């Protein structure tokens, strides 16, 4: 059915058409960064109220804590990172063009972890975690999808 732009009826018709095609997104929750330990990448583990009915608090905190641990591992200052830094310096930083850095390896691990968590825990509950790297490591974005059975409240 073609929309009639000048009337709201037309818009309602379009709306109904689209409801059938895409799962309606109810809202998004953003878990912000926790800077209490400095500029290292850490996310707040505080359980957001919007997720109360959706997922178990402990599970959520475990996910975020594991994420934090993984990022800490990526940014750890230790023998390995110093070795990598010195090697890079000696080769005038050309080595980074060929080798994958430790950080990048851990980021891949994080992607796999998030995909895994989504498949096992969050997707069955109508939630989706977005990898923080896609948001510039600023937030963990959790998209809450509506149950189709429940009205969207419009």
């Amino acid at each position: 059915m073609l929309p009639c732009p000048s009337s709201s009826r037309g818009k309602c018709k379009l709306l109904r058409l689209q409801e059938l095609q895409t799962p309606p997104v109810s809202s998004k929750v953003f878990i912000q960064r926790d800077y209490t330990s400095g500029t290292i990448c850490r996310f707040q583990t505080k359980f957001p109220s919007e997720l109360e009915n959706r997922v178990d608090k402990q599970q959520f905190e475990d996910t975020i804590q594991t994420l934090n641990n993984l990022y800490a591992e990526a940014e750890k200052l230790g023998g390995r990172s110093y070795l990598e830094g010195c090697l890079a310096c000696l080769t005038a930083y050309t080595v980074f063009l060929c080798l994958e850095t430790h950080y990048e390896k851990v980021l891949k691990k994080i992607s796999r972890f998030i995909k895994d968590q989504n498949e096992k825990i969050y997707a069955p509950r109508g939630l989706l975690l977005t990898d923080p790297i896609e948001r510039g490591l600023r937030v963990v974005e959790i998209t809450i999808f509506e149950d189709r059975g429940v009205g969207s409240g419009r």
Partner: protein
Amino acid sequence: MKSCEYQQIDPRALSVSPLSAQSHPQTKAQRPRRKWEVFPGKNRFFCNGRIILSRQSGVLPLTLGLIVITCGLFFAFDCPFLVEHLTVFIPVIGGALFVFVILSLFRTSFTDPGILPRATPDEAADIERQIDSSGSSSYRPPPRTKEILINQQVVKLKYCFTCKMFRPPRTSHCSLCDNCVERFDHHCPWVGNCVGKRNYRFFYSFIISLSFLTSFIFGCVITHLTLRCHAGKSLIQAIQESPLVICFFSVWSILGLSGFHTYLVASNLTTNEDIKGSWSSKRGAEDSGNPYTYNGIIKNCCATLCGPMPPSLIDRRGFVPPDEAAAAACTSEIELPPFTAKNDTNMCTQSTKDVLERMLHSSDFHGVCPAGPPKTSPLGLEASDSLGAARAPSMCSRRADSPCTTCARSRKDSLHSINPAFRLASPSPSLPRVNLALSDTQEKGFIPLP
């Protein structure tokens, strides 16, 4: 008249109405674009996004020219004499230093300094909501700062109006590049790029190696002149043939700069913080220590120079998702009535959800004057108009300067509109601009407590 009707819904209903598709054939045929092509900052990209430079490349060609000319003169005039009279290692050392300097310079100039991608419209709306709900009852929008504790020290985070987020600690917005850069040190015109978290170590190795190079050349030239004078040739002629003059003037400034940055590295400070005196002990005894220092020179040096290399957050070579591509296409003019929201730039296929949202948001904006804060479901189709319109400006294409400057300015203006619900919306000319003065003052007033 039929064409007028379709024109009205044209930008919205691409995937619904076949007629509109015919009128904009290039949208269907649009190849997937890489993110660097729609990057909102003032940067230039080469090699399909692999190389990033500031748009204001400053005097990078001059820097390169000076280095190459100086070394060229050195190798041409001094080396033959010194190889003959001293040792063959002189050009070898000079050559190695020269290569190191050039590679470091290129790494500094062509690397992403740690640019933070701008907040997505959803994030921006969420932050706005949090600011609103933290208690400002006055009509003026609250000043955008947030206080947090870092290592038991109070640090203020400022809200960036361009990037629509609270800047992480040590992040600053570079006005030349129009980007927020993490651990922002300074914008260096000599390398034509910002110096930040990701390329500070390259910059440091560039200036240290350049110090060594210029000192080495300076020393060799002095030796050469001394030997020549002993051999009886005139001093003036010898000087004319040498790169002495360039070296003489540059060696002191470069040595000074290296010394300064060595101090910064050892105390884990940035030039920005040092200039502003953020952690200066003069300000107030115990309270103003640097919360980022590891309290050890060696540890600070290792952390800054040999720490793990963070990845680039802007993902230059990734492909733009179809949703965002659609938003980017429809943003060149942020006008409210749907049929004037022209797709002068390329039109991409939109997701139908975006279609609906924008239609509703634009009509809401006209008809409704929301008094309260935006609702809690930003993507719900009833939600305030902030999202639909805000999604557009944030993906403003940077290929053409002027429309995007307009976007940026109009975004800034819109943020200061009185009604919080309109805060992220595109500006209507009728909205008062009384709060323009607040745009750059982010330090006054109360601070919403986290």
